[in-house]
């Protein structure tokens, strides 16, 4: 493992671009995801129609890895059904946990494969999965709590 493998061009680009980092129109789901051990926070917005994720975006602050991972995720899930999005999330978790290593199986993750080596950096795993966990929870119906 080396820093070189992690901070690839793809990550650097996604981290520095704001392509998916913005609010979306008429979101049907808004959910905050927090990584308490480090203070990373993202807020994921989804607009779903007839079971398909029409649009998605995120806001918040975090490291290059959590930001790039969320951004890459949004590229992947836009236009997909909820089921497909969940399948990709599971595939991603499998890759990060080093449980799925077969390259051909991982193909569907496309650019997200750049995050594969995170599996050797336990401290950063939480960063890489933050967006994906938030997605999973949002699809399962979790919403931000009402302000009290």
């Amino acid at each position: 493992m080396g820093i070189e493998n992690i901070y690839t061009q793809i990550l650097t680009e996604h981290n520095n671009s704001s392509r998916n980092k913005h609010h979306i129109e008429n979101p049907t789901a808004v959910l905050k995801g927090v990584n308490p051990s480090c203070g990373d926070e993202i807020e994921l917005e989804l607009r779903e129609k007839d079971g398909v994720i029409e649009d998605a975006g995120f806001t918040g602050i975090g490291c290059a890895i959590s930001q790039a991972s969320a951004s890459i995720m949004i590229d992947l899930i836009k236009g997909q059904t909820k089921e497909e999005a969940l399948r990709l999330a599971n595939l991603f978790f499998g890759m990060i946990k080093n449980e799925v290593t077969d390259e051909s199986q991982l193909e569907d993750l496309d650019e997200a494969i750049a995050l594969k080596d995170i599996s050797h950096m336990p401290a950063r795993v939480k960063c890489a999965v933050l967006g994906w966990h938030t997605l999973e929870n949002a699809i399962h119906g979790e919403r931000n709590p009402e302000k009290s």
Partner: protein
Amino acid sequence: MNPYLNDFPILKEEHNGKRLVYLDNAATTQKPLSVIRAVDEYYRSSNANPHRGLYELSIRATQMYEDSRAAVREFIHAEKDCEVLFTRNASESLNLVAYSYGLNFMKEGDEIALPVSEHHSNVLPWQMVARAKGAKLVFLYPDKNGRLPQAELDKIGPKTKLVAVAHVSNVLGTVYPVEEIVRRAHKAGAVVVLDCAQSIPHYPVDVKKLDVDFAAFSGHKMLAPMGVGVLYGKEELLNQMPPFLTGGEMIESVSEQDATFAPLPQKFEAGTQNVGGAVGLAAAIDYLKQIGYDTIIKTEEELLSYALDGMAKIPHVTVYGDTRAGEQRCGVISFNVDGVHPHDVSSILDSDGVAIRAGHHCAQPLMQYLGVNATCRASLYFYNTKEDIDIFLASLKKVRGWLGLGD
């Protein structure tokens, strides 16, 4: 070169061909061999349940445990051994005060004053007390240099019943004016809970001279093993307080429905105590005394100056709090690199063998006040060297490059 290297085996080892540059001393320090060996030796030849047995081995264990208490008492200049309570860490020490003093001696409308820079362990217990008793938390805000202006200290007033304050901030390294705070608090009739977790590894703490009512710290931040901490409390206060944890060893007598409690310090030490930990703490105190606070302060001040000077020369690096070394400044440096998240800074430095922390440092109220989500933190100890700082600075210079950002 580094005179302490032989005492700290971990600082000599190489990982992935790189020597460890350990700059996370505010989180926990490394342990000298003398401490590791003292614990080892205790278990090999003197291990027994203290206070319980009448046989020689148990008497020896009891003696070692009580000698450790006396060593702590002397080190912090407490008047009596019974004012020194062993806990598991500073957090438990502070919880003990909150549960036993806070819940029983505070009432609705009372104010608890504390700097916004306090560690969560010196914030959450007071939130609990405030919630339970209808008391109010009043925060004091530091200026740009990390100092508490007089106007903020003026918040310690007639309604204040307790002031919770760190001797040294674990984020900004500021040394707070404890003597002045105590003067104001006592004038207001409030007690002062000093969190000296970050001072005692680096500065002498004289509870008598400071005249604080309580003082809490952890062994593991001052060369001792994990799992042992200390609460100092004035005898008079501790005597008035009810027990916190109950169980074996802290009783006078127990009937089915009731119990009376042992005198100090046993009253607050329920169950089998960590003798090995206490013995390790005493060994750490011995080691610290051998080196001497003078040497520690001088070494750290030099390293801090050197590091701050070097960092000032790296573009896009912001240091929080006071940016110069000095008497009111301890060797804790919080900083950020423009455009790079602290986690990434930490991962990149780690690839050069440099261990720093990144995150909120258990001080989220301060992060919110500073308007940042997280910072990087490099924290020094006497066993660090200029070479350590050079490696740290060199690595820090490269950070933005890794993320495709310019100079």
